[in-house]
């Protein structure tokens, strides 16, 4: 499966989806005008990956800021990972946030409460 790497910009996060190395990361700032367009590639990749995933998938998210449409797209990603988990695959979502960023911690808690998939909050 081809890896997906998207370099960060001032408005979009860095994306590393590498099934060979088992690295799944979305980090940085996410305020694209076309969030759907940006995250479509990510969602398609996960959809493809979910057909034959690694024994364990640990997905790291470390976002400093994101807009509401990105929030919906993140939720779509989480839903896909949740589906993988429900299908019997080992999946864990790690929500990293700056220790002094209460809002981002609260956002992680919101997602955690909404989803039925192991969701860890990791202050850094």
């Amino acid at each position, binding site marked *: 499966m081809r890896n997906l790497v998207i370099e960060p910009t001032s408005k979009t996060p860095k994306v590393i989806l590498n099934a060979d190395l088992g690295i799944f990361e979305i980090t940085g700032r996410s305020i694209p005008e076309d969030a*759907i367009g940006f995250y479509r590639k990510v969602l398609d990749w996960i959809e493809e990956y979910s057909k034959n995933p690694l024994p364990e998938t640990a997905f790291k998210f470390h976002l400093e800021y994101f*807009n*509401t449409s990105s929030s*919906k797209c993140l*939720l779509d990603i989480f839903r896909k990972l949740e589906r993988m988990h429900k299908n019997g695959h080992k999946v864990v979502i790690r929500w990293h946030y700056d220790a002094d960023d209460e*809002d981002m911690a*609260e956002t992680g808690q*919101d*997602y955690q409460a909404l989803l039925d998939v192991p969701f860890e909050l990791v202050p850094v």
Partner: protein
Amino acid sequence: MSQQDQYFPEETAFLEEARAKAEKGALSPEEWRQAYGILIENYENLLKTVEVLTHQATQLENKLEKVRSQLELQKKALSMEVEGLEKQVHVQQKEVHKKAQERDFLYDQMGKTRLMLIVILAILLVIVGFVFYYLFVDTERMITFVKRLRGLE
């Protein structure tokens, strides 16, 4: 494609499906119960999603508002600083102007003094020239002049 279709494609697809079922109408009570159950489940999920998104949108707005307030404060502080600097520049400009005037006055004085020195030097040169001429070149006339002064002639 509408915004709704873009952001909620699965929910929109399900809605269309439910609508088609309802319009068709030919379902058994069990099928109705099942479809209604799925509808409730999806509606519940959608509600939770909207709750989370609304909460996050409010958080983001608050965050932006906080940043905006900070920027406003920084802008005020910068304005005050700029005002202070402008006053300082004004005072220094006055100072520079005053110094320039003093310099011009001094140059003027120096010019006058220089001119006076040149005039004095010129007069001295003329006197020395005369003395030198009568002492060493036209001695006869000098002797006659001195004699005339003493009343010998």
